[in-house]
């Protein structure tokens, strides 16, 4: 069994990492770090794990030798932990925003603070199996992208790579409340957040930089909090490049993704669920992608959906771990989602 230490284990991403690793045939969680709850049972914070484990949280200082370190802490705190652990473990996977952007200046611009370990930025392999599977097989440092970023870049990469779309893309992201973590802010109070259609980032959401980096497109992003706990959807608006047509777009997706275990193409002509929608994906590691063209115009709309805590975070990290270890990619990730939901 591979020994894994999870930092930020009392948070939403941390809890999801625990759920997945506890159901994984090859991993053992040897440390679940929390500064607020040391000594408390993990299932006192994550009640879904009640019969799955007797694990208790520990302090960061109590973490002993392990094979893999998973960071599910806020950005900025991850930098320090990376410095501390990078050399002491075989593999470190960071789920925060700290090592997603290659460019320290972009980091400063989008996160408002200077990067404290810019020299490490190049050592991280992006935690995107669909785009970096080969590098992941030998990676020592992996940085998993943001939840809406993952949806957006998986949605846009195939047509972008084949230069089928015009450069400027508008990404409209919609997210549930778990996307902001387990921290009780005023706007996350149930009576305030419930039923929201809250445009919290009308322009310049952070994830636009990540999507741009992985697609080469000029990405502009808007983000809205909608009524949901889990789930993210992006609707990407762009135009076909001169000479490109919808058929070529479809072929691009088929070529890129037909063998991907966790990508499904969904653009249906019938039925209730014609385009990607998060609610049937909750708990699953799928990213569903669909697209539609406006007849008689060059407009292209691409839609993607995923569970922000799974394919948008913890599940993607576990998939990367599976790739890295040479295990089947679906280990720990076989739950298909529920309907009705």
């Amino acid at each position: 069994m591979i020994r894994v230490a999870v930092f930020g284990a009392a948070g939403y991403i941390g809890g999801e990492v625990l759920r997945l690793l506890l159901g994984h045939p090859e991993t053992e969680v040897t440390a679940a770090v929390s500064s607020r709850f040391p000594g408390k049972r993990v299932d006192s914070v994550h009640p879904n794990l009640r019969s799955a484990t007797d694990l208790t949280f520990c302090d960061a200082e109590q973490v002993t030798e392990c094979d893999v370190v998973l960071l599910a802490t806020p950005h900025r705190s991850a930098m320090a932990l990376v410095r501390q652990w990078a050399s002491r473990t075989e593999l470190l996977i960071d789920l925060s925003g700290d090592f997603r952007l290659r460019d320290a200046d972009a980091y400063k611009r989008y996160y408002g603070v200077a990067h404290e370990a810019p020299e490490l930025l190049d050592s991280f392999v992006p935690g995107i199996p669909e785009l970096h599977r080969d590098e992941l097989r030998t990676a020592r440092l992996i940085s998993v992208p943001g939840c809406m970023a993952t949806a957006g870049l998986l949605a846009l990469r195939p047509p972008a790579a084949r230069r089928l779309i015009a450069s400027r893309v508008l990404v409209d992201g919609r997210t549930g409340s778990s996307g902001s973590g387990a921290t009780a802010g005023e706007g996350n109070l149930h009576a305030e957040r419930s039923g929201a259609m809250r445009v919290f980032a009308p322009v310049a959401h952070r994830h636009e930089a990540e999507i741009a980096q992985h697609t080469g497109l000029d990405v502009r992003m808007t983000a809205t909090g909608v009524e949901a706990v889990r789930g993210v959807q992006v609707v990407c608006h762009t135009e076909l490049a001169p000479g490109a047509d919808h058929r070529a777009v479809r072929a691009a997706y088929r070529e890129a993704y037909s063998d991907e275990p966790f990508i499904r193409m969904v653009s249906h002509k019938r039925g209730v669920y014609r385009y990607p929608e998060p609610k049937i994906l909750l708990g699953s590691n799928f990213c569903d992608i669909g697209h539609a063209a406006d007849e008689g115009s060059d407009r292209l709309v691409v839609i993607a959906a995923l569970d922000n805590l799974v394919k948008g975070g913890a599940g993607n990290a576990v998939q990367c771990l599976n790739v890295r270890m040479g295990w089947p990619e679906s280990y720990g990730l076989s739950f298909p989602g529920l309907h009705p939901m």
Partner: protein
Amino acid sequence: MTTATQTCPECDGALTINDSVRMSEVLECPGCRSELEVVATAPLLLALAPEVEEDWGE
């Protein structure tokens, strides 16, 4: 039961069609869920059935 492969006229996806297919039978494309009517069998010819619109949002 032998099968043949055709391409969906709507989405270019692969359609597996078995030989017992009959005239007027309606097939469902696994890629885009279009309904495809068999309008000729030798050679096989498929026509798109009309789309069902959803009337939402007003």
